[in-house]
Structure formats: C-alpha cells, structure tokens
C-alpha cells in the first residue's frame, strides 16, 4: 500500500499542472475583458488608466509569457495577486478555505451519521411507514434545489420564527475567536470560550444541514439498498441458522458490509461539497471559497480563478487517494496496485 500511495502522490504534481494549464487557458479564452473589473466601466475610455493597469497586471504580455510567468511563480508558491481583492491569491484562499472546510466537514458528518442511521432504519422497516417516510425524505433531499431550501429555511426559521441565527459565521457584534485553525468552532474551544462556541456552532448547523441534504438522501438510499441486498446473502442465513439474533446479524455483519460503498461516496463527495458550496455560501453570507469563486469568475479575475481550480484539484485528488486507501483498509478483498 505504501508503494501505491507514494506513486499516487508522485502523480499529483503532474495532474495539478494539467489542471492549472486548462484553467489558465480556458479562463483567458473567453471574449471578455478583465479590465472592466480592474479599472471600472468609467475608466475604460481613459487610455492612460487602461495602459497603466494593463502594464501593472501583466496583461500587456503575450499569453505564452503570462503562462510562463505564472508557472515559475507557482513553483515558488506564488499564485499571483487577485485583480479584484488586490491581495495575494494564496492569502485569499488561506483566509477563506477554513470557512468552507468547516461547513463541508460538518455537512459530511451530518450526511454520513444521519444517512447511515436513516438507511438502517429504512432497511429494517422495509415496506412499513417509516421506510416510506425515509425514502420520500431521501428523494426530496436529493432533488430539492439547495438555494430554494436555504431561502425557505431562512425565511421560516430566521425571519419569521426568529429561532435560527442570522446568516454569517457569528452573530452581529460578536467578536471572532483568535485565529488558530480558522474553524470558528475549534478556535473558540481552544480559547475556552463556550458561549462563542455555541454561537459559532448554531450558525453552522442550518447551512451545514442544507448543504448535506443531497448527500444525505444518497447515503440513506445507498445504505438501505446495500442492507437489503446483504440480507439475502448466505452468511446472513448461516448466522441466523446458528441462532444469532436478527438485530445482531444486521448490526455486526450486514451493516459493516453495506457501509463500504459509502466510503467511496464520501471520497467523491468531499470535493463536490467544497466546490459546490457556492450557493449555500451566498445565501448564508458564508465568506468561503465558494463565494470567492463566484466573484472571481464574474470579474474575470484570472489569478483567482486559476487558484480556485488548483485548490479544487488538490482536494479532489487527495479525497480520491484517501478513499482508495480507506477502501482497502476496510475491505481486505481490495488490493491496491
């Protein structure tokens, strides 16, 4: 497994180079003008301002030159400076990634825990009311548009009932915890500030739950179908014939086998959750990488767009690698080669 892991890790730079190259040329292939973002509509007709901005941001160089400069800077860990925020892209991503990771990780935990429990209950109550309710809920979770659910939840629980906190990572006038990990829940605990932790956690719950819905629905259906499939296997019949209680068979043996495909699903979903955070982050004023990606795309902020693609690529590649390793660890039949 070590050789497999090292070989996969060695391939990552090559794959990232491919991602960066595609992102670089694709973003520049559109017939739009980033100078609108840089100098604004009013100054587009001002040749001095346009010339100064073109020089300053390297847009006077040929595409090949720009690409070479980008790559050489990238090797040194410099992802360029954002046209829009005027900050180094690495700093921008570093400031926003923890917010998105905190949201995505919480959504993942919710989806896996509730999804597994839901799937097991549905399988054990097959054909009964609970199974029907869970199957409909799973279908709704997978089908309802996230932005619509987000807006409805905000309107009902925040604006109307007033029981949910405001959009954002903390309540108004609340002072954020000292920055250690960038995860407000973790940092507030590290600071020993329980009220701050509860505030951060309360703000996290609703967006994370809504973000988890699509994955939650899939996990429920996957676990349910796997459980039902496994229940017909020979080893289950044998265990039951030897007098093992049905619940014990399901929990000790069937569940363990049924949950293996969920691991694959998690691996694929990590990247999707993070890069798909756009809508949730926009609706819940969550200043993460999703909103950064949207604003960067809208303004043709080339360095930022390429930087976001690079981060997305790293997360996908690492997610897939970890999934393969986890899969092999859980299921001894899988050999990594």
């Amino acid at each position, binding site marked *: 497994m070590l050789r497999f892991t090292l070989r996969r890790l060695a391939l990552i730079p090559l794959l990232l180079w491919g991602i960066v190259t595609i992102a670089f040329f694709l973003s520049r292939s559109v017939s739009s003008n980033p100078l609108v973002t840089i100098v604004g509509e009013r100054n587009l007709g*001002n040749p001095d*301002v346009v010339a100064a*901005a073109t020089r300053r941001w390297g847009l006077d160089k040929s595409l090949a030159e720009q690409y070479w400069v980008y790559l050489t800077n990238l090797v040194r860990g410099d992802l360029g400076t954002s046209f829009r925020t005027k900050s180094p892209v690495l700093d921008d991503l570093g400031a926003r990634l923890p917010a998105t990771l905190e949201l995505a990780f919480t959504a993942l935990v919710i989806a896996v825990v509730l999804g597994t429990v839901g799937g097991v209950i549905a399988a054990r109550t097959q054909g009964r009311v609970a199974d029907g309710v869970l199957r409909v809920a799973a279908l709704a979770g997978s089908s309802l548009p996230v932005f619509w659910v987000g807006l409805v939840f905000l309107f009902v629980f925040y604006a109307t009932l007033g029981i949910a906190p405001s959009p954002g990572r903390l309540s108004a006038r*609340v002072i954020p915890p000292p920055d250690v990990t960038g995860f407000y829940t973790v940092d507030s605990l590290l600071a020993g500030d329980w009220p701050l932790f509860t505030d951060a956690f*309360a703000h996290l719950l609703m967006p994370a739950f809504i973000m988890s819905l699509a994955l939650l629905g899939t996990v429920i259906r996957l676990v349910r179908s796997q459980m039902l499939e496994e229940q017909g296997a020979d080893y289950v019949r044998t265990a039951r014939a030897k007098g093992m209680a049905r619940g014990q068979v399901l929990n000790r043996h069937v569940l363990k086998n049924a949950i293996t495909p969920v691991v694959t699903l998690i691996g694929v979903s990590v990247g999707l959750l993070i890069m798909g955070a756009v809508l949730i982050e926009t609706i819940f004023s969550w200043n993460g990488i999703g909103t950064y990606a949207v604003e960067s795309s809208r303004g043709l902020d080339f360095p930022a767009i390429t930087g976001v693609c690079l981060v997305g690529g790293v997360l996908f590649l690492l997610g897939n690698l970890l999934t393969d390793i986890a899969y092999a660890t859980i299921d001894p039949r899988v050999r990594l080669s």
Partner: protein
Amino acid sequence: MSSARPSAPHRRRTAVRAGVVVLAATSLAACSSTGPATTDRTGIIIGRAMDVNSLDISRSLCDTCQIYNSAVYETVVRATPDGELEPLLAESWEANEDSTQFTFEIDPDAVFADGSAVEAKDVAWSWLRVQNLQGLPSYFMQGITGVEATGDRTVVVTSAAPNSAFLNIASASYMGVVNSDVAAENGATADADAASSDTAEQWFLENSAGSGQYVLDSYSEGSEIVLSANDSYWGEEPNFSSVTIKEVTDASAQLQQLQQGDIDLAMQISFDSLDQIESDSSLTTDVVPSYNFLYLALSPGVAGGEALQDVRVRDAIRMGIDYDTVIDATLAGNGERQSTGIPNGFEGSEGLPIPDFDPDGARALLAEAGYPDGLTLDATYPTFSAYGVNSNTEMQSIQQSLAQVGVTLNLAPVDFSTWGEQIDSTGYPVTAIYFAPDHPDTVQYFQYFSLIDGSVWAGRARMPVSPEENDLVAAALAQSGDERTATYTELGQLMYDDAIILPIVNPSYILASSADLQGNNYDITRNLDLTRLSFTD
C-alpha cells in the same frame, strides 16, 4: 457482587449514544445560549452589497469607497448637503481671478491618527499621488500642472486652463489627505513613476493613514470592513465607537437582518419592501431623491447604428419611451424622469426639457426620417442591478414601449466583462448603463457625456466633437456663480439636442434603519455621511 467489563460492541454503542447526546446537547445549547461576548451598542452595523475595488484612497472608485474614504480620511474642503463648500482640513482657500490657481491654508489644529500634524506637504503628496498612480480617480487631477507646498500650511495648485470646478473636485472623498510619511514608509510614492513603483496597495488593505474620525480596524474582503473611533481625532468626537460595514448582498436579506436587529442600517432596500418597513415600528424609513441615473446610449457611428445618424430617429426613440411605465416596472414608481446627462438637482439642470412619451410624434418623426415602417436595432447591455433597477426589466419595458412606435429592439444581455470588451472597440448601436456622481460639480457630466474632446461617450458613439460644446465647457470653467450656471444649462440643452444619452430614470433612494438611529442620509461625496448619524438615547 462483581461487575463484568462491557463487551466491545456494547462499548461502541454506548460511545455512539454518548456522542449523539453530546451533539444534541450542544445543538440545544447553541440555540438557547445566553450569548458570547459582544461589542456594545455604541458601534453601528451597516448592511450593504459592497463594491470595494481598493482601500487605497488614491486608487479607489466605488460607492463603498466613498463611505470608507470619508470616514478615515479628510478632504481640504467638504460639500454640505446644500452644495456649499465648508472648511475641513483647510481653514481657508481662494482661487485667482481666472481660476487657474488655488491656494489652501491648512488648519494648524489638524492632526493624523498617529498624532502628527497634517501639513501642506501631505496635501501636495496625496494629490500628486492620485495623479501619478494613474489609478481610477486620476481624472480628478486632469489638467493640473502643479501642486506645491509653499509653506508648512500653504498648498498652491496650478491648472493649465481655467478650472473653476477644482474646488468642488477637491471635496470628493478620493481627494482625501494621506499621512505621507507613514504611507511612504510602507511603499507609497507620489513620484512621476508611481504607476509602476508604488507598492502600497496591499498595505492599505490592513492599515489606514488618515486624519478622519475613524481608523481601519480590519478588512475581510467579501465579509466586512470594521472601523474604530480615532482616539486622536482633532475635531468633534465621533458618534460611534466602531463602524462595521457588513456585506449583505441581497436586498431581501438586508431587510430580514434589519428587522431582526442584526444590522442597524440597510443601504439597498428594494422598493417592493417599502410597505413592510413602513409598517414596522422598530424601523424608520424615508424616500429621498438621488443623483444617480440610468440611461440609454445611442451610438450612430458604430456598425448597425447607421439609422441613428439622423437625429430625428434618435429623437423618435426618446419620444417612443413610455417613461412612467418603465419607472413603474423597475422601481414601483419611485423615480423621476430626467432631461439629459445632468441629474436633477445639479447646477444647470433647472429649466431643461423633460422627455415625454409621445408615440404619435415618434411615428411622425420616423416617417419624416424615411422609416415609415419602423426600424430594427440591436441593444446589447450588461446585466446588472443598480440603484434598485434590474437592467433586464428596464430593457424589456423599453422594448415594449418602442415596439408601439415601430422600433424593434433586439435585446442581448451580456455580462459586464463581455460588454467592457466591446464597448470601446466595436461598440453597440444601443446600450444601457448607469451613472453616479463622484463630486458635486456638473462638469463631470460634460467630460463624460457631451461631444467634447476626450469625452467618453463622444468616443463610444463615434460622434464628431462639437466645437460649440468644447468652447462652452472651457468658458464655464473660467466662470463662476450665475454666469456659470447659465452656461451649464446651455450645455445641457445642447446635450439634449444631441440625443446621444437618453436618461430613463433618476431613482429615488430608500433610507432605512432601526428606529433608534437618527440622521440617516444620502450624501453626494460621502454616499453615507457618518458624522450626521447617531443613536438616540
């Protein structure tokens, strides 16, 4: 009695149950917590869709920048709500007879936030930096040939040609004075090569160097700008201990957060929500006129715009727009019609003709111009939502009314960067966009919309320069008082006759805040003047 050690599955189940209980308890605690440590209510939270393009005052140009710049930096003079100029950093000022030289005397009491005195050299350095950076506000210094500190407190500005607008321009928030010593230590320069050698923009994202009531505490792009009161402020004490400008992009989200008390003031409330706010006793609201406007621009000189070369066709389009219906559709009726590129209320706008919907007149003019069966034009415009107006709604409404007079508009909405790629190259026969003032002088509208040398829209419309308009602008800049106002009006009439810029609506503006906040305002140079805001007891 002996106790058996629990089996592994039992321990796992117990651990899972314990985890669930902890999670549930935490969730409940999160919902019922008495709350974390907060800043007190002496600070104000303002919700708005931020459009910050820089916190470096000499490079910035945006509505949010106006609020930030005027809170943190100070100009030599400031424009009052009545359009008069009053002292700020300068205790006195004067212009020579032909408005080519301006002298400012800096108030000896003025100090920066670090306690050092505001000197004439800081003023000269700041303005030269605006000019030499060739950044977004550099056109404020257009035609200025010299800025010199002739003493510790005296600054002399020289213009190549008469420029009576300069005093108004000096009141723009982008002309605020920076502590030159501090900024220079951090990479800023005002030298002639500043456009390539100045490296301070990132420093300004985390620091400020002004003499205003507030200093920059922190900035998180896409989230908030936090200002704290300047303890060394040399004038009247600030009304708030802190000012937070919070990113709330959506108008309905601004309303929700205002109603829940999470923000104290909302800057972009939709007119659809006006009834809701007015019926809420915890909120206060007012609808006031603004100087912003949205306009249709016709470009006779670009491919596809040949029919527009006949001014009668351009006039017919102006007459074929049902303004009231468009204003109803876009702003629920909360806007005014406007004559030309000079907003209602600006010097020179009074007495200019206001366009009317006249379909019969439009059809007659089109027939006279050789288009009895009407004509078809492509209208490419950026998709935006500005000052409460959605460009798609606006253009669809215009399309419907022009169809009644035989003008078919083929609408093509594009994103802003695509629009920007084409507008100054191939151009568009018909487009739609918006404008907000940067300073209180009317000359900005001639420099942008009229047919004079260097005007942006003369270039985009591919129209020849009008010598008459050129001469009148030059004459106005050498005049003052009523004489100048009359020249501005004459220029406004010529712009109306050109029929290149057709204003569609001058939107009203909603001032919405919590009921315990007084002094909410719309300010021409500051966008929101924080000095007029305060909490009631």
